[in-house]
């Protein structure tokens, strides 16, 4: 990447014998929105806190705007941060909270007042300036926290699972708001979450993390459709996994319980007889034969759930239980459990998972 704005190089963090972040590398462009996505304990929050300056890395550097900030204290880095628990100062009004960073920097009162008014307009809480945090709802408090973080025009914005403590509806509307504000201000942002829907819908790029390691870095489309590791494939979206054995590495054929499939030349380096895991997204599978789809296996329908416009079907193919959705058709009755069924898919949609 030419001239990344935020650059994390070879960062490693260990608490005693436990390594929490391993060899983390990332370059972020100016104005980019990057998510750290992963389950609890994967190290994403620790990595965020290293960028913020609350944790010292055991090795590696963090560069912002060309400057090495690794040795700087948090209050010297000019970074904005939004916390999961809002962390608004209870003794100050909304206006006081938003203006805190400017007040600490010694800005004149008039400038603080106008900037606070600007931020209140941005988060659409113009009438709330003199309220106290305990008088606000969770969503409102988080918007104030966002305004507070951005009032002093930081170079980078960090958000640590800011939506996890909110109701589902507020979560959805607030994440759209956050993304809109971020785009408008063009501020480089890192967003930590365990919710893949949030990460997929908001980010320019996602870093999927597991056990302290960055499993994959890519756009939401890449992460979802071309997962690099088994963990990424399983963590992001639903995945149907089929175990099989390589019959012919050159021809790319794999034998599975319900038949055989060909995955083209993607079996390079594997030996005949080797076990291999194949995976399919539910939307890639269809019930019955379809034209243009070269993959076909047969299985037995185990479960049918009629959900109205969608019918969820689970089909046993060998030992695997594949989950697929099919639309309701008023003309034909839904499939019945116990029937045999054909499953068709395109072999190019099939993912090959590493061990």
């Amino acid at each position, binding site marked *: 990447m030419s001239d990344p704005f935020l650059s994390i190089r070879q960062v490693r963090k260990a608490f005693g014998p436990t390594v929490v972040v391993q060899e983390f590398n990332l370059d972020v462009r100016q104005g980019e929105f990057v998510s750290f996505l992963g389950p609890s304990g994967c190290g994403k929050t620790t990595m965020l806190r290293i960028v913020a300056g609350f944790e010292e890395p055991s090795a590696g550097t963090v560069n912002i705007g060309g400057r090495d900030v690794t040795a700087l204290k948090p*209050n010297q880095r000019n970074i904005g*941060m939004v916390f999961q628990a809002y962390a608004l100062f209870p*003794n100050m009004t909304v206006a006081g909270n938003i203006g805190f960073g400017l007040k600490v920097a010694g800005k004149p009162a008039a400038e603080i007042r106008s900037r606070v008014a600007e931020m209140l307009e941005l988060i659409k809480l113009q009438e709330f300036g003199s309220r106290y945090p305990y008088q606000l709802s969770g969503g409102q408090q988080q918007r104030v*926290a966002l305004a507070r973080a951005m009032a002093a025009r930081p170079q980078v914005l960090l958000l640590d699972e800011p939506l996890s403590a909110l109701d589902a509806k507020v979560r959805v509307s607030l994440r759209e708001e956050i993304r809109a504000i971020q785009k408008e201000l063009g501020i480089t942002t890192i967003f930590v979450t365990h919710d893949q829907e949030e990460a997929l819908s908001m980010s320019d790029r996602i870093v999927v993390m597991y056990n302290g390691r960055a499993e994959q870095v890519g756009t939401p489309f890449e992460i979802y459709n071309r997962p690099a590791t088994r963990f990424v494939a399983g963590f992001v979206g639903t995945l149907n996994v089929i175990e099989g054995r390589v019959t012919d590495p050159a021809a790319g054929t794999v034998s599975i319980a319900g038949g055989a499939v060909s995955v083209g030349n993607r079996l390079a380096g594997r030996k005949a007889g080797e076990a291999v895991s194949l995976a399919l997204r539910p939307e890639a599978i269809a019930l019955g034969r379809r034209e243009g789809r070269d993959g076909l296996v047969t299985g037995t329908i185990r479960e049918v759930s009629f959900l109205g416009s969608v019918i969820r079907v689970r089909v046993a193919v060998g030992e695997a239980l594949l989950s697929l959705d099919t639309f309701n058709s008023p003309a034909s009755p839904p499939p019945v459990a116990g029937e045999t069924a054909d499953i068709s898919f395109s072999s190019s949609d099939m993912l090959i998972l590493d061990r």
Partner: protein
Amino acid sequence: MNDVTAAAAAALPAYRPKLSFAWVGVVPFVAFAFLFLILPTLQIVTGAFRNPAGEFTLANVANLFQPSILSAYWISIRISVASAFLGCVVGFLLAWAIVLGGLPSWVRSPILTFSGVASNFAGVPLAFAFLSTFGRLGLVTLVLRDWFGINIYAYGFNILSFGGLTLTYLFFQIPLMVLIVTPALDGMRREWREAASILGASGFQYWRMVALPILWPTLLGTFALLFANAFGAVATAYALTGSSLSIVPILLFAQIRGDVLQDPHLGYALAFGMIVVTGIANFIYIWLRTRSERWIK
């Protein structure tokens, strides 16, 4: 109304509000509280405003303003302020050390347990303890004299004095402060410190602009509580300084024992004055505590 509902309505008894006798269950407690807590207190309060003939008078309260009694109140106030203030400061620093000070976690529990014990160890044994330690033949006095060559008594220190009593009072004031402030410090969320820091504040600015403003109701309230605590204490003072230090409780004690003031109703006024002082102090404590609880949810 058709036949079915009419029949149903006829079958139900007419609704009568039930007389609740539930309050009978609290009669023993109410009687006890009334006889042994409220009535005696009222007796004192009304007695303060009555003369020997039984008529209403403000003379007793007015008599409180004679020099000897005013000076007793003044000494009491000074001792209570001194021990409350020092108790607050030292107790706060100690509580800060064990909660936010980065000490190993095994330190906190013994300190809190000990504080629980020490806050109840007031009275006569406490006076003995300090006499044995800081008296003329006390351990600390002797150690300072024989090992360090410092004779504190030559410098004017005396355990049987205002300063000595204050020092002794701290033994239960500091733990009380620790016990009350520790939960308040627990409530100081780490994110506030971090949020302030990332917004550019130094440690000092954080304390000045965020932490102390959040804590001051608790600190001031506890100061009031410690003040009231010291103001009403009798046994420690009696055992340590006896009648030599005329604080109000000692004066009242002597008055009850032997009518030293030659005016029983003045005793009532003295006691009434004590209730007023401790009552106001406790009211301040409770008011400030409810205020701080509203902020920190």
